[in-house]
């Protein structure tokens, strides 16, 4: 087990966004965080990355507790919907990422090719489309040095072809020993890429495991045979 998350809670005023969230992240897997809009996926990622203070809870790595200000030693988080350094060209932003975080320089060319970034390397990030920006953010994440890469909505803004290419790139990355933790609200995308899943509903963990394990849990809850479709599993558990 690479990371163990225990009892993360967060509220914004009277709104309890996360309630005692606990789960584990295994080495070299793609873990999917699945939940409807407003389930608390982004908040959970931000709390884990230490860019938002959690009210309660802790994170362990190899049985050692990792404080919020030390999370960057094990986890890198790529937020959704941001346009960092909008005046800087893509190439410089990637070089900065490699220099600032001391990232995986040897993967630079592969990442450029896998994500198709060559055509807009010299364009300022602020001028890119949503999908192009998403690919740049994925590249920044893939080049980061931490063992766990958390990505919020990795396919948001990508068309079908780009999504499939991104899936290949992410899968390829995991095969080199990296661990991915991705939040996805499209069930189909999640089923295509993830090894295991955490179902988050209304700020609570509604289920954790492989597709088969979750299907069995859903069947047990429904009192019938395990559903074969992941969407049915999701609906049964959330």
């Amino acid at each position, binding site marked *: 087990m690479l990371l163990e998350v225990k009892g993360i809670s967060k509220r914004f005023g009277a709104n309890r966004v996360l309630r005692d969230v606990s789960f584990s992240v295994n080495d070299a897997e793609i873990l999917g965080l699945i939940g409807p809009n407003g389930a608390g996926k982004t908040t959970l990622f*931000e709390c884990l*990355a*230490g*860019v*938002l*203070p959690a009210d309660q809870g802790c994170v362990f790595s190899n049985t050692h507790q990792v404080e*919020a*200000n*030390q*999370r*960057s*030693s094990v986890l*890198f*988080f*790529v*937020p959704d*919907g*941001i*346009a*960092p*350094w*909008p*005046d*800087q*060209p893509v190439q*410089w932003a990637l070089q*900065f*990422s490699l*220099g*600032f*975080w*001391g990232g995986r320089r040897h993967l630079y060319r592969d990442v450029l090719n896998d994500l198709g970034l060559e055509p807009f390397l*010299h*364009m*300022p990030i602020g001028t890119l489309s949503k999908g192009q920006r998403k690919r740049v953010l994925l590249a*920044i994440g893939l080049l980061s*040095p*931490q063992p766990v890469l958390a990505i919020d909505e990795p396919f948001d803004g990508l068309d079908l072809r780009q999504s499939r290419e991104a899936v290949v790139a992410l899968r390829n990355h995991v095969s080199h020993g990296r661990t991915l933790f991705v939040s996805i609200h499209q069930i189909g995308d999640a089923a295509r890429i993830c090894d295991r899943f955490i179902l988050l509903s209304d700020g609570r963990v509604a289920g954790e495991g492989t597709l088969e394990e979750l299907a069995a849990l859903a069947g047990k809850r429904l009192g019938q045979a395990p559903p074969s479709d992941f969407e049915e599993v999701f609906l049964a558990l959330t």
Partner: protein
Amino acid sequence: MRSPDGAWRWLLRKEWRELVASTSWWVMFILAGPLVGLSFISAVRAYGEASGVGGTAGGLADALWPLDGVLVPTLSAYEIIALFLLPFVAIRVVAGDRQSGASKLELQHPMSPIGRMSAKVLVLLAGWCLAGLPAVLACALWKIYHGSIYAPEAGTVVFGHLLHAGLIIALAAAAASMTEHPSTAAILTLAFTVGTWVLNFVAAVQGGLWERLARYTPSEMLATFQHALFRLNLVLAALALIAAGLVLAAIWMRLGVAVGRRAVESVAIVVVAAAIVFACSFVRADWDASENRRNSFSEPDEETLVKIKAPLTIEAHLAPEDPRRFDLEHQTFSKLRRILPNLTVRYVSSTSIGLFEQANAHYGEIWYDLAGRRTMSRITSGEGVLETIYGLAGIQPPKEDEPELHGHPLAVRPVGAAPLFYVIWPVAIAGIGFYVKRRKR
């Protein structure tokens, strides 16, 4: 993970690129030329006329010094730039990362928030120094006109402007870091500036505690340096306030720390800064950097005054807005404070303007108490006050055998300044800006 030093250098490069990419900085850079030019041209024209251009100046010319006549008016453009343009540049640099979302990425590096803030401040100071180029051009023109520049007093005024800019940067950085939106930060910064003006006004009307507080407003601090007076207590207080502002900005930059904890740390920083500023008020070291010793008595007078070791208390019955009090304070007491460490000055009045206190027989009295010996005088001139103190101390006044200082009149017109500052500078800087922005892509 990259070592903190290597990461910090990358961050510094990033902040520089972000500054150079910001329109706000280029606007400040371009406008610095015409603003300094306007001040310089007006100052040189007035100085030239007072020196005899187009007529005879008579004895007036002998009293002209470039510090008051050219240097301070020219550099005063930077007071305007620092108050109304620099805050927007600083807010852009500090708040830009939060607006774009870059801070969510950058904050995942374990670098200390002070380290992050120091990179931003260094870049802002470098940007401010570059914006100082028109002042260098103005000084070069003044030298070409054969004008005089006394380096110590010029250095003191420039240092005062640097501290002033530092205060504004620290204030804007703190506001940008503590607020969600840059426009809120801009309003807060401008509100603070207006607040200090109100404080200065109240100090002028009410005196007392307000007057002591007002000494630490950015504009009053700058005014001291503009008199070519280098006061260590002001420098230390300004540095403490700058540090406090930057630490506040760094505290609020840590988005991953609970708001309550950040608030408690902020209160602690404010308390510590207030204590340091209070402690600084007891530091008396200063240096009169002016060529004509405008902040000092004559050397023989100072040598005589130094011999007075007993505590001297002066009680002046004058209202804050009475011009006699203003003259007394600025022409005499401020000089006395520098030379007599055991001097206590108290002002007594029941109104702010003193107009209706004239009927009071005691109004206008100045009481001197030196080790229990008391005397009263109504004289407000420097010579009169010194004479009274010498008499009370039983000391013979020194003989004035110092040669009279003469100013540096210069009857010239600001030839070539207008095209340089109004045309060449804006066009050249706009061209460079356009080229740099294109090249970065």
